């Protein structure tokens, strides 16, 4: 692998003249800021391209499959932290077209296991600074995250999470129903409901972020550092010689590369099949829906594991909902009526006054679930083939830290310490991660 130091990375302002067939923006200030926004407005100037099109090169040092948040973040950190810029990110569709653009954009670090908490807390740190790091407003909204407990058992689990979180310096606490009602007056905290709210795990730093902006911000920053993002470029096969990866076959031709990173979430098994690797993954659709906008009345992210629903309200006024994954595996993203029915009845149970609010759109994404609700990251038995998969329903939260850790793992050729619990080997070794209790509907 040819590794350039970060300072040698060419300053790529606009290479679209050579490589792109698209119209170019007129030159002008490229850095995003309020001042430049005004300048552009006064001069009616156009902004330069956020990301560029390229011909597919014959070889790359690293090929990343999947231009979602994981693939793009890994590419960005390979380039920015390790000076590895001869990187291609391939996607069969468009940037952020998979789970990265279909999730409900909730971020939090109040996990159950120490491994999980440390990992997601690092992600939160990166998220907090991401707008400045990438010069792209990702609209990180630290609005607070409430995981409601309706049963004695879930109160116990919430306290468990709070205790683990606190010992790792993460702001989490168990609060009672009255406090829940004070934070979110629209929630029915009376005892008249079928499953009264007994309390909640309150995680003030949790919140939402604009998922598309995160994808585009990483894409733009990676592009600027020389990473090539190839949309509409489907990987059809992976070449190996003697158990070592040598390249990939794509819908636009062959590419050689000694390192291939699989960041394809719901489709991860299909990519692993290309090198004969079986992983403990099952792909389930995860559905989401959004209502018409109404004036903002819900501040926090509200999650109810017992009622299988999570909800937040966007700045545009829409309620965004999610629930648990579909009850059987499928690669279908067509959605179901049952999901919207369950969702509606549970949301009304939590907030009776929203019955007249209308559901505007539903969609689905694909989740690659593992048996222990934790990802599979790092080396595989196939030399040069790396995975960053098994993201289940929590991939978006982990995007930045995963990119950072995978970049480090690839650059150092050694599993990054922060993901040491998430190796593929834990399954044959029988040392699973105990995240199941927290993550089943944990958004």
């Amino acid at each position, binding site marked *: 692998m040819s590794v350039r130091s970060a300072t040698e990375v060419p300053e790529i302002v606009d290479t679209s003249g050579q490589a792109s067939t698209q119209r170019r923006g007129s030159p002008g200030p490229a850095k995003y800021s309020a001042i430049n926004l005004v300048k552009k407005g006064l001069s009616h100037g156009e902004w330069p391209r956020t990301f560029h099109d390229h011909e597919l090169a014959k070889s790359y040092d690293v090929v990343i499959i999947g231009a979602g948040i994981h693939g793009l973040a890994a590419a960005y950190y390979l380039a920015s932290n390790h000076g590895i810029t001869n990187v291609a990110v391939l996607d069969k569709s468009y940037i952020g077209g998979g789970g990265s653009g279909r999730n409900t954009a909730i971020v939090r670090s109040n996990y159950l296991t120490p491994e999980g908490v440390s990992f997601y807390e690092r992600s939160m740190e990166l998220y907090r600074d991401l707008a400045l790091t990438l010069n792209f407003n990702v609209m990180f909204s630290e609005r607070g995250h409430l995981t409601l407990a309706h049963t004695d058992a879930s109160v116990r689990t919430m306290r468990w999470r709070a205790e683990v979180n606190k010992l790792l310096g993460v702001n989490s606490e168990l609060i009672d129903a009255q406090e829940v009602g004070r934070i979110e007056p629209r929630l029915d905290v009376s005892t008249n409901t079928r499953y009264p709210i007994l309390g909640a795990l309150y995680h003030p730093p949790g919140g939402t972020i604009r998922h598309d902006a995160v994808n585009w911000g990483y894409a733009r920053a990676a592009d600027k550092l020389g990473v090539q993002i190839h949309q509409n470029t489907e990987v059809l096969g992976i070449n190996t010689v003697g158990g070592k990866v040598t390249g990939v076959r794509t819908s636009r031709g062959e590419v050689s590369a000694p390192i291939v990173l699989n960041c394809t979430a719901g*489709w991860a*098994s*299909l990519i692993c099949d290309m090198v004969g690797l*079986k*992983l*403990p*993954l*099952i*792909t389930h659709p995860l559905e989401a829906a959004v209502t018409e906008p109404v004036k903002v009345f819900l501040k926090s992210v509200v999650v109810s594991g017992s009622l299988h629903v999570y909800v937040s309200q966007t700045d545009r006024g829409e309620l965004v909902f999610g629930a648990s994954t579909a*009850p*059987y*595996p*499928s*690669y*279908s993203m067509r959605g*179901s*009526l*049952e999901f919207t029915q369950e969702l509606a009845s549970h949301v009304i149970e939590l907030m009776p006054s929203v019955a007249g609010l209308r559901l505007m759109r539903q969609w689905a994404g694909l989740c*690659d679930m593992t*048996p222990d609700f934790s990802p599979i990251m790092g080396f595989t038995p196939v030399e040069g083939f790396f995975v960053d998969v098994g993201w289940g329903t929590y991939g978006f939260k982990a995007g930045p830290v995963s990119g950072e850790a995978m970049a480090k793992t690839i650059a150092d050729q050694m599993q990054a310490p922060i993901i040491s619990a998430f190796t593929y080997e834990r*399954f*044959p*070794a*029988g040392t699973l991660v105990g995240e199941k209790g927290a993550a089943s509907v944990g958004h």
Partner: protein
Amino acid sequence: MIRIPCPNCGPRNSNEFRYSGEPRKRPVGDDVTPAEFRAYLYEHTNALGWVKENWYHSAGCRRFFQIERHTLSNDCRPVGSAPQESAS
């Protein structure tokens, strides 16, 4: 809501059933290695296409049975009813 063709009751809404996983063979014997056994426990083919799977008609005849389902279209068919050309 897809319908699952129960061999005993006929097609019924899928919420009458519980998905029970793809059929797998448990490795037996004293020489079974942890890797083999845990592959049995955890690994899945997770194929995109027609797969054979177990279902339990929990709100019906209470029988376990196998069907083939296409994991993209969610179409179902009895095991062995595949047209010759798509029997893969």
